């Protein structure tokens, strides 16, 4: 198999299977989670409290008072990494074309050098977070194999995309194929690892916020 054939495989069969597994996995996990059900809360909900399911979805992304000062690195790098990754995925023109090819909608993208700069910032943030995780005793104690796996699965598409764009390390066609395959690995693993938080965080936050709101407190 030559490089172009590998790229064609990545854009064809591998993409079909990875999207299918990702989609099936997400639907399965959602059914599994929602199907568990909850015991009915028979108490009268409190009115006018500070809590809300929808509000919690947003507020959980903001640092609680004092926390930013205690661990600025985690917050700054966390924001840079998540927002950077989001922008790279949905605002790089080739990615928009991929989305158009899958769901048929598209929108204007950013210039390539800007996305390139965001990639560098995102990779730097991810590296800082890894080093912090390894050097901070509490974080290190809390971290398990899946945390490092999730980090690796997230870094690989960014790194290979950067290397492909700059024609580094491998021949471009091969690196582009490796980049697409790394994204497909991420897609396959997403529903079955901690990466599923990309989907489940909205459900979890809403549920937590709503449950607290019924008791008259903010989550």
């Amino acid at each position, binding site marked *: 198999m*030559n*490089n*172009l*054939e590998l*790229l*064609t495989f990545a*854009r*064809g069969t591998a*993409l*079909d*299977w990875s*999207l*299918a*597994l990702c*989609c*099936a*996995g*997400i*639907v*399965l*996990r*959602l*059914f*599994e989670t929602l*199907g*568990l*059900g909850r015991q009915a809360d028979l108490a009268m909900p409190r009115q006018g409290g500070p809590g809300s399911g929808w509000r919690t979805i947003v507020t959980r992304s903001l640092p609680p008072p004092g926390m930013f000062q205690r661990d600025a690195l985690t917050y700054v790098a966390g924001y840079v990494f998540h927002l950077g990754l989001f922008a790279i995925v949905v605002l790089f*023109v*080739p*990615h928009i*074309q*991929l989305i*158009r*090819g*899958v769901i048929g909608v598209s929108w*204007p*993208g*950013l*210039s*390539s*050098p800007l996305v390139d700069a965001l990639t560098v910032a995102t990779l730097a943030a991810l590296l800082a977070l890894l080093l912090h995780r390894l050097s901070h005793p509490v974080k290190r104690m809390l971290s398990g194999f899946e945390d490092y796996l999730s980090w690796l699965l997230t870094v690989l598409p960014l790194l290979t995309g950067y290397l492909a764009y700059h*024609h580094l390390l491998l021949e*471009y*066609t091969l690196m*582009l194929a490796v980049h697409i395959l790394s994204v497909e690995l991420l897609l396959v693993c997403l529903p079955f690892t901690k990466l599923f938080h990309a989907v489940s965080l909205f459900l979890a936050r809403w549920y937590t916020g709503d449950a607290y709101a019924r008791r008259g407190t903010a989550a």
Partner: protein
Amino acid sequence: MVQGKISSPLPGTVGEGLARRGVSRREFLRFCTTLASLMALPPAMAQTLAQAISKARRQSVIWLSFQECTGCTESITRSHSPTLENLIFDLISLDYHHTLQAASAAAAEEAREQAMKDNAGKYLLVVDGSVPLANPGFSTIAGISNHDMLVETAQGAAAIVAVGSCAAFGGLPRAKPNPTGAVAVGDIIKDKPIINVPGCPPIPVVMTGVLAHFLTFGGIPELDPLGRPKAFYGETIHDHCYRRPFYDQGKFADTFDDHGARHGWCLYKLGCKGPVTYNACATLKWNEGTSFPIQSGHGCLGCSEPNFWDAGNFYQALSMPVTPVQGAVGAAAAAGAAAGVAVTWHNRTKKAAAKAAHATLSVQDLKK
């Protein structure tokens, strides 16, 4: 002279032949400087090139055409005519080329056999077209199958130049489902140096450059892993495309006649395969350096890459799926939902069983 030779009789060296045709030394040096530049050689090498080519004996060339469309021959013989490149081409001894030679039938084959005999071990074999292996009768010349003619002629060749994507990689005949069992020259001949000059068709001056390199250095140029001369196939079309700044700025044509297309914006969204295509179209161009496909408003098809025909829709961006994914995703969602229902049923059953098995403890029980 063997009956059926195409070139007029020009005994002696290439330099003598050029002088006879009225090509000045200045013109020849300019050509050699261009060649040196094309082949990424230092400028000082132009003089060496000129001396080597001038003194070279006319190189015997046998050109075999198999499963092909003659586009490669059209490209090489017509596109640059009548420039100096063509004169150089003419000044080789093209001893067999069944499209161009006047002779036919037995006389034509006799020309090939005579050239093979007279120049055993020295002649250059040029091949265009793929070789069918599914059935020898799919493509024959004078009753000889392409496979047998290739094997026989390659035996005495100094080197082989596989011209065009069909000879280099199998090309269009090899496209799925490959009904003729087409293969490339390199799939059959393993014991001779092979230079792949792919393209559908290849750029004429690339062919001339490869030939000049062979005449000058007596060997094959530096090749990439696909057997292509690095001097011409070392960079992607995208890297040297004049529309590249628009790619960097995020300016793309969405259709072939919109504002972006009229202003020369990048054709990536319209399926241009320039980013993964290694060729010199963007620098050497075609028709005496006039233009190339992207300059005339159409994206690159990637014709100098192996199996480009099966590498997805020509008019879809390189990042788009090769085949529609909606069906697979829909089926997967349904399968996921079915599995989810099954898992939910299992969990609920387990939960109900646990609930049923739960024994209520009283304070008295705890005091026991």
